[in-house]
Every structure is written in C-alpha cells, then in structure tokens.
C-alpha cells in the first residue's frame, strides 16, 4: 500500500464505517461485538507492526500499553461519564486520547532501554515491562486491583472501532512511506549501515515505540468500553503473544497482510466454536460430532502456529521471501 492508496483507503474506510454504523442496530449483536474485536485487533496488530515489522524491534509487551490505555480511559469515563449526556462523545474521545497519551509515555519509557539492547534481550525486556505494568495494576486498589474494574459506559461502537482502525492504518502507512519514515525501514534492514548513513537510529526506534504504544492505548480504551469489564489478567503475556502472532501471520511489515491476519485470527476461535456446536451431520450417527474441538481449540491454535513457522515463515500473505535476516 503506498501513500496515495492509503489516503483513498482512509477516506473510503471512514465513509464505509459511517454508513455501516447507521445500520448497526439491525446487525445481530453477537456479530456486532465480534466486529468491535476485529477493529480493536486491527489497531493493535497494525501498531505493533510499526515496531516489529517496519522498525525490526522485537517487542513482546504490547498488551502492557493496551492495559495503560484501557485503565486510563475507563477511570476517566467512570469519573466524568455522567457529566452531561450531550458531552458523552467528547468525554469518551478525551478518555481515549488520554489513554493513548499515557500509553505513549509508557512507550517512551520502554523505548529508552531499546537504545542499548537488541534482539533477544530487547524481547525479554519488553516482556518484562509488560509484566511489570500488569503487576502494578494488580496492586492498584483504586482501579479494583486483581478483582478488575467494571466500566460503566459501553460507548465503543462500530464507527469508533473501525474509525480508529482506519486512522491507525493511515498514520502508520503514511509515516512509513514518508521521506522521514524510510528511516524505520533502514533501521530494520541494517542498523549499523543506517547509522553510518547518518540516520539517528535512536530517534527512529523511540518514535516507533511511542507511536505504536499510543495506538495500543487507544485500542485498550476501546476494548474497555466494549467489554465493560477489565482485569489485569486480561493484559498478560499471552495477549501480547496473540498480537505478535497476528503480525507474524500477516507478514512482518505488510500492513494489508496484518489486517487480514487480525480479522482471521479474531474469527478463528468463533469459527471453531461454531464447528464444535454443530449438532448433526448427515451420515454420522453421533450427535455433536465435533464437540472435542471446543476442548482442543488452543491446541489447534498452537499447532497451526508451529506448522505456519515451519512451512511459511514469511507469513501467509507476504510475497517477499524473508524480511528479517
């Protein structure tokens, strides 16, 4: 996707999600909630793709940024949500932005150690940051601690979920394809050569972390106002891995692939659940022939991940051979 496509895509996506949101009350609420998840996962995966895919900094702590955004936004709307019904949209947007900004500050804090670390060390430090953020929320009694926090307002809707997804895709694409943004790719391809060419690798790495964390924070806010109940356990290491898997599956540094992967991976558990619920198949005597699928859902998921890595390590939707050597 180049910059001109990105603009068309952005406007098209905004119009489309406005139109769909007009008919949102006619959509089955089960699918509507899944569509929120899809929008949120697109934001998470595309923003992580900026850090992992375009800048080549392997981060395993995206769920931590998401947690910062979720808790900040939820605390703000819980506090000020009742103010004035006409102001609710402003409060919601303000809360999301505040969540994004605080997450960006957290991203800055994580970005600073990345100046010195690379590869596996960086992966483990970002993982550590994610876990520390989770433990801090677990001990913060003002937001419910380990019991979790219930969010009073379910303000996330189709328009906001996909509108912010479109903004994320546009910002990341425009950033990477701008003259300035070529630096991200240079840092990924060869850090030593990039710095020899006069690119400030430090600045690019920190920028990637801050921008990525900002959008993860927004996604966290949307998540909080969609589920209306958040616990620190929901933002653990596994959640970070799930986002990383979306990026890997889509192909690192391939925005369209990552979007498709986010959609597919959100639908996969629902699809497996639907298969497990099948009551009867003509020709097979037993009722519920696939009920075992519901127990083995995560086993299937991890097996798929291993098989994917053994057969198509460059991601499902990537045409290029291999990106990170």
């Amino acid at each position: 996707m180049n910059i001109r496509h990105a603009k068309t895509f952005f406007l098209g996506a905004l119009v489309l999600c406005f139109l769909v949101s007009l008919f949102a009350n006619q959509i089955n609420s089960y699918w509507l909630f899944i569509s929120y998840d899809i929008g949120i996962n697109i934001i998470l995966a595309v923003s992580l793709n900026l850090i992992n895919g375009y800048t080549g900094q392997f981060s395993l702590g995206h769920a931590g940024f998401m947690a910062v955004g979720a808790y900040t936004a939820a605390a703000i709307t819980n506090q000020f949500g009742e103010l004035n019904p006409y102001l609710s949209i402003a409060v919601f947007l303000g809360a999301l932005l505040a969540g994004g900004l605080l997450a960006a500050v957290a991203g800055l804090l994580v970005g600073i150690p990345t100046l010195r670390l690379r590869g596996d060390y960086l992966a483990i430090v970002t993982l550590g940051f994610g876990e520390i953020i989770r433990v801090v929320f677990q001990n913060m009694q003002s937001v419910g601690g380990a019991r979790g926090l219930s969010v009073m307002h379910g303000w996330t809707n189709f328009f906001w979920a996909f509108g912010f997804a479109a903004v994320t895709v546009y910002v990341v694409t425009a950033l990477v394809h701008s003259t300035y943004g070529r630096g991200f790719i240079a840092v990924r391809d060869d850090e030593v050569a990039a710095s020899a060419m006069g690119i400030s690798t430090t600045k690019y790495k920190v920028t990637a972390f801050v921008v990525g964390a900002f959008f993860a924070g927004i996604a966290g806010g949307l998540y909080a106002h969609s589920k209306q109940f958040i616990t620190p356990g929901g933002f653990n290491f596994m959640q970070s891995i799930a986002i990383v898997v979306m990026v890997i599956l889509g192909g690192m540094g391939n925005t369209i692939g990552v979007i498709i992967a986010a959609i597919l991976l959100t639908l996969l558990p629902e699809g497996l659940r639907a298969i497990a619920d099948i009551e009867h198949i003509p020709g097979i005597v037993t009722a519920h022939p696939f009920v075992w699928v519901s127990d083995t859902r995560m086993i299937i998921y991890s097996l798929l991940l291993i098989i994917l890595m053994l057969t198509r390590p460059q991601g499902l939707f990537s045409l290029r051979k291999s990106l990170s050597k």
Partner: protein
Amino acid sequence: MTEFLQQLINGLALGSILALIALGYTMVYGILRFINFAHGDIFMLGAFAGFYLAPKVAMFLPMPSIGGGLAVMGISMAICAVVGILIEKLAYRPLRRSPKLTVLITAIGVSLLIEYTCQNDHVFGAAPKSFPTIFPEYHITQLSGLSLNSNQIIVFAVTLILLLALRFIVLKTKIGMAMRALSFNPEAAALMGINTDIVISFTFGLGSALAAAAGILLMGVLPGLKAFVAAVLGGIGNLPGAALGGVIIGVTETLVAGYISSTYRDAIAFGILIIILLVKPSGLLGKKEIEKV
C-alpha cells in the same frame, strides 16, 4: 537477624532450583543463539512425570526415602531428556538456517502446545494436584532458631552435585569440548569433524534433564519465565552466569516477599533484570558482543 538468615536460606533454596532451569536456557542459547521458550514447559513435564512415577516406583522401593526419591528423579530426567531431544528434532532442526525470529515464534508455539495439551482434561487436566512426598521429611532446628528442613538440604545437595556434574561434562569430556567448540564457532566446529546434530541433541537432552530435576525438587509448577530472566540476568550463554542469576533472583524474590509485599514479587525479577541490562546490556557475566560489519 535470625529472620533475615532464615529468609536467606529459603531464598537460596528457591534460587538453586531457578539456577538449574536457567542452565538449560543458557546452554541452548550458547549453542544455537535462540531462546528456547519451551524449556519452562519441560520443567513442568518433569514435575508431572514425577507425580505419575512416584506411585509406580513405590512398588519397588520404600517411598519417602532418599533412594526412592532419587529413582523418581532419575527416571523423570531421562523422560524429559527424550522429550527435549524430540522437540529439537521435530520443531527446531528444520529451522536451523531460518532467521532467529522464526525460531523464537516456533518455540513460543511449542510452549503453548505443551501447556494446552497438558491442561486438556484427557491428559493431565487443569486442576492443581498435590505432589506426593518422595524424600523423607524432618526439620532441623538450630540453637539460634534457624530452621532448615530436609527438603532444603536435599535441594542444596542435589543442585550442587548436578552443577559439579555439569561442570565436569562441559570442561573435561569430549562431548563437552565439542559443545564449547560449537558455541564458539559452529562452522569451524563442523569443519573440524564435530557432528553438530549430535552435540545439539545432547545439549537439549542435558538441559531438559536439569529442568526435570528442578521440577521434582520444587514439587510444583512455577512459570519458567523467571528462570529465563535469571539466565539473561547472568549473561545468557554463560553457565556460571545462569547459576548466579538464579541465586540472585531467588534470594531477592524471597526477601521482597518477606519484607515488602508478596504481591510485587513477580515484578521484582523483571525490575532487577531491566536495571542490570540498562547498566550492563550483556548481563552480569556475559561477554560483550561486538558487531562486525
């Protein structure tokens, strides 16, 4: 003071178990340069192997006894060594020439696979199980009020013996020399006639056996992540570093849980790690890697 010494003893016991697991991470990293995320799950399999083996062994040997306990430990170590070698053959060997990231993701996949398979109700189930007593239990209370239970003595003794055995294997035997050669320069080692596949299999087997021993000693499941943090802390790829990192994490965690707050203990390990890596990016005893262009 007595309380402090007591916490120190408890911390050292936890730390030596962490050290055993950390050694497996570090050995694999030293040779293949990748983080074997599935290593923490081998540790869990070791504990489960002990859980199911204990009643079987009890038919031949008296159960809460040193001999019986060591037998359970030995068989679990052998089982986990085989599992470790199999994982390497099936999942990691086809990726020997792939980018590091691919192998890392595969390792996470293997870890998830083992975890969820074991959680399945048809395998081990997700409910916690109480581990049978396999070593004799008695308490020794010193005059000063320090208490040292037999379990801790066994943990110290077994860890010490295993560490010395590992040191002997790595420094004095032929296969140990091959391991060191491989971690120094894989291509040159292969040119010198070292069968790299066998050495790598051996390394996985050795690391998995140590993890299984830790699983039996701890008699429970703790996230292997912390042991991994210990390995990175000491400088990943460095054997004494892993042991040192394990002890540091174990002692600090116990002291923090005892004196400050037990809810923050999970964050402490990562906190120490981040601070140390900021000061010394290659870990406490790790060598600085210089990137040549």
